[in-house]
């Protein structure tokens, strides 16, 4: 099979031959697409890394190490980062009060970063899968020893013409390095889902040490803001009495009460005046008419659907 075309100017096709398995004895070819990495926000390693689109679902670092070793020889490949391993969004872990106060711009960005990092490192919960699988068609960024190695890989990929020269997926990966999939993987999953309690306890403790610290800081900050005029001489108004800021539920309770009072007042004054009665009756009639029209429309719609009015046989 001769490959003459390229996906587009930038991408180089890298076919991988997939060996047949007893459960699916068909030889298949998986196509990945390579290009020099050029993210929107450049990083220092861009020059020596390659963007790989359409990685196989069961990719691991070891798989790619073996793959590139067979392509350009060992020692060129450093590591690979999978698109789906990056946690896209870490939700904020600050107490709500702190977030509100942060709106005043008094807190520093770096501080936040550090806290997040700490939460990430010290308080993460254990993973539940021994090996990750990636959605079909995901991408990854492979990091090579130097710019030259990356170029070599692209060149080698371009040179691949005959299927028998295609690198073979999983060849050269030692059994020890690859976490098995299949039934062992599922068994492992069931085990990992239930981590030891001590581990979870430790992580939770670590988390709340941090969280309580943040909460305390926020409280102090709030207190300070209440008493201190800012540079323009204004004092920030925060909730609560003299002693401490109000709690959220107190405020909500107060609001509830006020609404109830208003509601009661309103009810007392309905059906009081003659014109109210009259308008009410008018509204009722109008509503009845409207309902009649709606029914008519409904029946019309039913009629349009054929057979609605024909008794079943």
């Amino acid at each position, binding site marked *: 099979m001769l490959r003459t*075309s*390229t*996906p*587009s100017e930038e*991408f180089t096709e890298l076919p991988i031959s*997939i060996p047949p*398995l007893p459960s*699916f004895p*068909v030889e*298949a*070819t*998986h*196509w990945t*697409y390579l290009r020099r990495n050029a993210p929107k926000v450049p990083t220092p390693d861009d020059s020596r890394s390659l963007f790989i689109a*359409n990685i196989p679902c*069961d990719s691991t670092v070891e798989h790619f190490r073996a793959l590139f070793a067979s392509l350009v020889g060992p020692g060129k490949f450093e590591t690979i980062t999978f698109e789906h391993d990056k946690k896209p969004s*870490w*939700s*904020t872990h600050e*107490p*709500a009060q702190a977030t509100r106060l942060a709106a005043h711009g008094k807190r520093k960005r770096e501080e936040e970063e550090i806290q997040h990092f700490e939460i990430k490192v010290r*308080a993460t*919960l254990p993973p*539940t899968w021994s090996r990750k*699988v990636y*959605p*079909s*068609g995901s*991408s990854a960024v492979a990091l090579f020893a130097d710019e030259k190695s990356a170029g070599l890989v692209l060149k080698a990929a371009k040179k691949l013409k005959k299927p028998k020269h295609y690198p073979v997926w999983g060849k050269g990966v030692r059994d020890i390095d690859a976490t098995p*999939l*299949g*039934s062992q*993987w*599922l*068994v492992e999953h*069931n*085990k990992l*889902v*239930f*981590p030891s*309690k001590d581990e*979870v*306890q430790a992580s*939770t403790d670590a*988390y*709340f040490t941090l969280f309580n610290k943040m909460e305390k800081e926020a409280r102090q900050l709030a207190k300070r803001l209440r008493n201190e005029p800012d540079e323009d001489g204004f004092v920030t108004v925060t909730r609560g009495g003299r002693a401490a800021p109000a709690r*959220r*539920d107190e405020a909500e309770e107060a609001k509830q009460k006020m609404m109830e009072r208003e509601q009661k007042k309103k009810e007392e004054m309905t059906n009081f005046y003659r014109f109210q009665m009259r308008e009410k009756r008018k509204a009722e009639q109008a509503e009845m008419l409207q*309902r*009649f029209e*709606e*029914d008519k429309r409904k*029946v019309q719609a*039913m*009629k349009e659907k054929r057979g609605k*009015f*024909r*008794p*079943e*046989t």
Partner: protein
Amino acid sequence: MEPGTAKRRKLDHADGGPTFEAANATASTMGSSGASAFVLETEELLKEVKFDYGKASSDVEDVLRQLKDVIEATEPHDPFPISDVTVNFEKKNRITIPYPDPQPAKDAPYKLSFEGPAEVNVAGSWILKTNTKSQPDLAVDMIVVMPSSIFQEKDYLNMRYFYKRAYYLAYIAADLREQLGATMEFVFDHMHGNMLLPILVARLKINANRDDGSEKSNSRRKSIPAIRIIPCAPEDYFPAGKLTAVSNAIRQGKSEGGEDTKAPTPFYNATLKAEGLFPSYLRLLYRTVKSCSAFKDACVLGRIWLQQRGFNGNINHGGFGHFEWAVLMALLLQTGGRKGEAVLSPSLHSTQLFKATLQYIVSANLQKKALVIGKDSPDPESLRQSMPVLYDTARGINVLYKMTPWSIAMLTEQAKWSLSAINDSPHDQFDPLFIVKADQPLQTFDILLSVKLPTSKEGVQSVDRKGFVCDFSTKLYNTVKKALGERAQLIHINLPETGTWPVSANVPKTKNASLLVGIIIDPLKASQGRDYGPPYEQKKEAAKFREFWGDKADLWQFPDGNIVESLDWTEYSYLGSPGICEAIIRYILKLRLQVADGDLEFYGQDMPKVISFAPSEKVAFDAAREAFENLEGDIRNLGDLPLHVKQVAPISTALRRTSLCVPEFNFRKPLLQPMEVVVSFEVSGKWPENLAAIQRAKVAFLLKIASSLEEVKGNVRTHIGMENTTRDDENLAFLDIVYEDGASFRLRVYSDLEEALLDRRTKDQTIERHVRTEAAELLALYKRMYINLPLHNQTISTFCTRFPALSSSIRLTKYWFDSHKLSCHFNEEVIELFVLQAFLKPYPWQAPSSAITGFLRTLLMLSRWDWRDEPLVVDSAGSLSTSQRLEIGTRLKAWRKIDPNMNRTILFVATSHDVSGVAYTHDGPTKVVATRMTSLARSACKAVKEKGVDLGMRSLFQSPLRDYDVLLHLSSKALKSITRGDASRRSQYKNLAEETGLGALPLLEPPARSLLRQLKAMYASPLLFFHGGADDTVIGALWNPQLHARAFTAHMPCSLTPSGGSGSGSGSIRSDKEGEKGGMYEVNRNAILAEIARVGGDVIEKIEVVRE
């Protein structure tokens, strides 16, 4: 406000206009607004079904005139002895005279003669113009009134009238055939299945005349209905006094005892009586049509209603047809009240007439008491008979003489069910009343059996000439009814059909026919193991009881010393209610009616084995419930929790009696899949005000509960488990609690602050849009888990106690979803709601009383549900108001407007607790799956309708695997070993194995589910997977047909391969396109399947490609 006042005038003026008047008129007569929809719908229905007389009537009239001319011109002849006439006539004309059984004796002394008819007239619905298009037996009735000169007064005796009538008919037939035989064909039939009354059916021959046989005239011929020629007696000819219900008109021979000769022959008498009343009733109906404008429409509605329930005037179909309906209404329009006043008013609307008549049928209690309409009611004694009685005094006849005890019971029940439909909700009363076919045995009856008619008529035939089939079935009915007692709510017998026969043949005999008996059981009482009879001291009753039951009757002593007669069926208890009923029926029919076991056949025996009707499953569910109550007590008693426990709510199917697998556990074999439970605490301000932190706090709570529980109760093991999530502001963990006795639970903690925070986030306009949508998703998940599920659990468990058949129906329905590999797309709660809906809105039936009926009606509901623009409203609490319902409809419309292609939120299922309608279908089935569900349900209903009782139940649960593109065959061995967890020994992580080796871990979920979840996540766009229950070893998959070949993008929907890369010879096309935008890329199917094979490893035994 009087209309005269100034204000009123002003108002009128302001609102005036014809629409308002019309609306007002309808609304004022119909009351609430829902009714107006019903009125409009029935009007449409009437328009649709009414027979178009304009087209056919002139043609029909031509034919009728021809017939009439011939009949009137028939040659008279003088009386000759019956035997001579018969032989001569039959020889000459080759027509067998349709004498009713028994044939007249050869030496009978009376003579037959023929004279021209006194009158020939068209009668029946044709003249009233109340026929419908959908009527299967559309025909014009033509009555031929025989002249009184050919009869003698004593002809009422010993069937003499009927012999003469048969001869008269045959004579006419001979003449008609001679003169019109070229264009018409003539056959005999029994009028209304009454063996005494043969009639002649004339039908135009299709393609009779080749010369003028153009297409058009043929099609016109087809539109001409059959014409039934009905000879009848002259009015008031026979003495009414001799033909009452208690008099005997058939004198048996001398050989019989004197007693027997006096046995009343009510059916014979009424038939004879009715022979002279055709014109009289015709006049009555005609008068009513004139006086009441809505009468005709109401008759048509009645006809449709009866027809959908399988009723018509034929004795085999209940003996209550359009004629009886019309007469009943006409009589009620005149009189019928307590003081003789009219029950119905002629100014009522047709729908009101219809409803009022139904109401009257229900309240009249015709099963038990004789109803007399009109003045001068006769002595009630003179009306006593085994048939239901509706006595029309003006004409002196029982209108219902053709009905049987079971058909009146059925009619009353049907009317009752329809009334409850009318009274229930104004919105969906129309379909069950007029559209749904309600006489499907499988959906109506819980137990169905066929009884072969015995060959010997010994001891069954009665003097009353109702026919052997009727006599036998009456006996059967009475026996079964008495034997089952309270176990049966309704027993119905379907009689075999009788058909027409050619004029030259003998009257067909019913041979090898069988009766179909349907029984609706009372699920509470039907499973009793022991019946109690009268006390031993009441000698007379006790003797009767013993006589009826034979050897089976024994004595039973209560602990308080009382001794009663009783019956012991406990040896069949393990079979549940159907088994017990079957045993009773088999026993009693053998004893009383000598029906051998081979002559009885019970249907529906091949039910899938998942639903054992055994009481043992009830015990298992009870045990699960008890274990839960234990857990609740233990948690509440934990002293050292920082907050008070407010509620421990079950959310597991096992705890609401609806799980497919019965939760069985014991000391040695703990429950593998823990039962899910939600714990909520008192409202507290101590929860941290941050979503992620709340989740951590929940984990802390779980840890605390775990340590306290283990401390307090020595026999409890706990495991903290991680939720399968990638976010950190979703629920992170759960706690599995395993008791020593094998019960295990999965605990999650509820925090009310979480909802408030999520709610605030969804409404916060200041944050980014995608964050808000995410928050909305989380909120939906949260509400489902902590609010809807506990309520749902409570609702379903309540209804499971209220409807004994609900639990097993739900489980059977789940099995159906499983066997069609649909269940991986449906939340179990949705399926439960489907079934619940079939129980809450069972119309046109009552709530199902067995698993099979419950299941089949759920399928019927699904097949009729157009989820494209109808929400399913399951009003379990009965609390939804009209406006709320409207609102639900509007919400669905809004969904459809936003997403007309229906990419998400396909099924819209609202309940009293959740009017949003998407709580259980948010992540539910896609359009493809929902369509598949509907089409499967439709084909199942079609099979049920077409095959009837011959349907093998198991065939409904067989799903062809050829429908899928790819099949993943899982290795059941590997799955089992994962479930048992014995693969852990092979694990390379020695340290992990030891750490958790303290005791077997609970199962997170069935391994096939875990795998499927991963596959779904990996191939969301190219493949759609289908998988049934946990032990289903085949995963079906379909390729997404919308993933066409496409140009290159870095963000791929799935693994792609360059088009033609596999050498399909499309190279030239490719090079064409290259010039502009590069090659095209298509789904790399083989690579994907190879990937699946690698990921599945030894779990996937084989990947089979069914279709390329």
